[in-house]
């Protein structure tokens, strides 16, 4: 992280421009502490706790990627399940080649990003809402192509090989750590990406795309980078899903439901804030666990809350937090502080 740049604030007449506040530095330290605590969890709690946390981490990873795509890149996709599926199948394929499935998750991220290049060439021809449905069609194409492959199990899917010689406890702990790493990397990648050049370009685009283009901002490249990163993250998350479930089924792994989860989490948590998906995923996860006995009602409730948020609370829960307290855990913008007030 480029902390040296931030510790030298530019002072100009009673104001100074800086990215972080004291609050956000404490928040960041708190987050690091939480991560360390979470990493130690398999030594402390029952496996049922860690295994349900895997679901939460997967949701955080996916939602962070969707937030990056839609909240910062302006590309609302309903087709990210394409990369969840591709990532999942990459782990299956890698295992067939003798690659350890946990390593396969990294391969899955890489391969998803590679496939995202030609996909973006097509999808970027669409704008706005049409991009959304177009990406969904592309995800369907990937599903239908996978189904045609017998070695990948066709329409009924396959079991994951290569983990059978691992003990149950060790495997569960390893899956938990893999999920945690993927979630942390996804959140951190978004943070670092947005603090850099890409983030600056995207902010310019968000304010005024035509002006940004006229000022020489390479909008398409910035968007493409975001799209590739988002694909990689969703691919890794898909890999975790398969490692966790030990099997794959094309309809489930390519289901638009993944996009629904991502969208609901981000919209409720707060679109365009890196903290939003974290908060939203916790809310989503809590509701899912709490209403587990009532069928799909949790999804109906979440749909209602998400649609209502989109209309009446467009900046989500974290938007409310920022509005009330000004707290930013991940300061990607700049803030103006008065220095003459003691």
């Amino acid at each position, binding site marked *: 992280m480029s902390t040296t740049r931030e510790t030298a604030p530019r002072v100009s007449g009673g104001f100074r421009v800086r990215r972080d506040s004291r609050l956000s530095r404490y928040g960041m330290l708190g987050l690091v502490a939480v991560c360390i605590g979470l990493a130690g969890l398999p030594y402390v709690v029952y496996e049922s706790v860690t295994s349900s946390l895997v679901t939460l981490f997967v949701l955080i990873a996916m939602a962070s990627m969707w937030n990056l795509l839609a909240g910062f890149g302006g590309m609302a996709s309903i087709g990210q399940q394409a990369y969840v599926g591709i990532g999942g199948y990459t782990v299956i394929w890698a295992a067939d080649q003798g690659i350890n499935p946990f390593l396969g998750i990294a391969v899955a991220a890489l391969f998803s990003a590679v496939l995202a290049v030609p996909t973006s060439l097509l999808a970027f021809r669409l704008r706005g809402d049409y991009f959304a449905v177009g990406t969904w069609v592309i995800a369907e194409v990937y599903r239908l192509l996978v189904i045609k492959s017998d070695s990948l199990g066709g329409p009924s899917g396959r079991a994951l090989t290569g983990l059978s010689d691992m003990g149950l406890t060790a495997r569960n702990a390893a899956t938990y750590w893999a999920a945690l790493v993927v979630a942390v990397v996804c959140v951190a990648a978004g943070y670092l990406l947005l603090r850099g050049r890409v983030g600056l370009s995207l902010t310019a685009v968000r304010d005024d795309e035509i002006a940004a283009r006229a000022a020489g901002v390479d909008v398409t490249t910035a968007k493409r980078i975001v799209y590739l990163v988002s694909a990689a993250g969703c691919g890794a998350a898909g890999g975790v899903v398969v490692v966790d479930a030990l099997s794959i089924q094309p309809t489930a792994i390519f289901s638009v439901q993944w996009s629904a989860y991502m969208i609901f989490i981000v919209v409720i948590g707060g679109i365009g804030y890196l903290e939003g998906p974290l908060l939203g995923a916790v809310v989503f996860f809590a509701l899912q666990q709490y209403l587990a006995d009532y069928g799909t009602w949790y*999804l109906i409730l979440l749909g209602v809350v998400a649609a209502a948020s*989109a209309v009446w609370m467009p900046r989500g829960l974290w938007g409310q937090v920022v509005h009330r307290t000004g707290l930013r855990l991940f300061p990607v913008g700049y803030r103006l502080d008065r220095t003459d007030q003691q």
Partner: protein
Amino acid sequence: MGLLNAVVQGVLLGGLYALYAAGLSLMFGVMRIVNLAHGDLGVVAAYVALVLVTHTFLPVWAAVVVTVLLSAVAGYLLQRLLLQRSLSSGPLATLLVTFGLSVILQNVLQELFSADTRSLDTGTFATAAIHLGEISVSYLGLLGLGLALATIVGVQLYLSRTATGRMMRAASDDPEVATLVGADARHVYAVATSIALASVALAGMVFAMRSSFSPTIGSMSLIFAFEAVVIGGLGSLWGTLLGGLGLGLAQSIVGYYDPADSILAGHLLFLAVLALRPQGILAARGT
């Protein structure tokens, strides 16, 4: 001969897709809204008709008429109460609202009617067909095509001949000036959504008569309708009709050689149009 039959079936199927797509095309044309719950609203109509037929003494045709009217009213209210508000809550809001609505509708239907497949029974009409040699033209297929043509011609006439229809086109060009000449944009938009829902209700019910349906098939209908709109070129209902026919033909002809590839063929046609003729798509987006 088999291939010729596939072509005929493709045209009939394409008619149904065009009927699905007409409302999607209208809503996009007038309000720049892509209603992601479009297909699901057709499924809701099918279930409403099913309930009317099984729990009242209404014959099927009367249930269809009642459902279309109910859908029109529902469309008006949907626009006034929900979509209109979302139009002023940022560019993503309508997308998120309609997507949320889609998930809500699918899951509510699942809770109410279970995930089992149903069908709307039309008795002997369902199987009746005109036979010309090896080609069989089903009455239901003709009904779908006929309704698609009637709907598209009707909406086209409405847009060009009536004051409200004209105002829809005007509002599509410049919503602010439309209010400056006296249009209440909320009302004009609500009428457009009302028409869109009435037409997709028809499509959903014709689909339900042709084949079995379940709470989640709405997503597939939306995708097909969307593909028809894009293949035909945005902004024109006649284009949408052609797009629907093109999609139906692609699915049917490829399906004749290998049924497993039928849907994939439709998607690939869509992607090919996207790759080769993107300018039409981009042009309609700019305002």
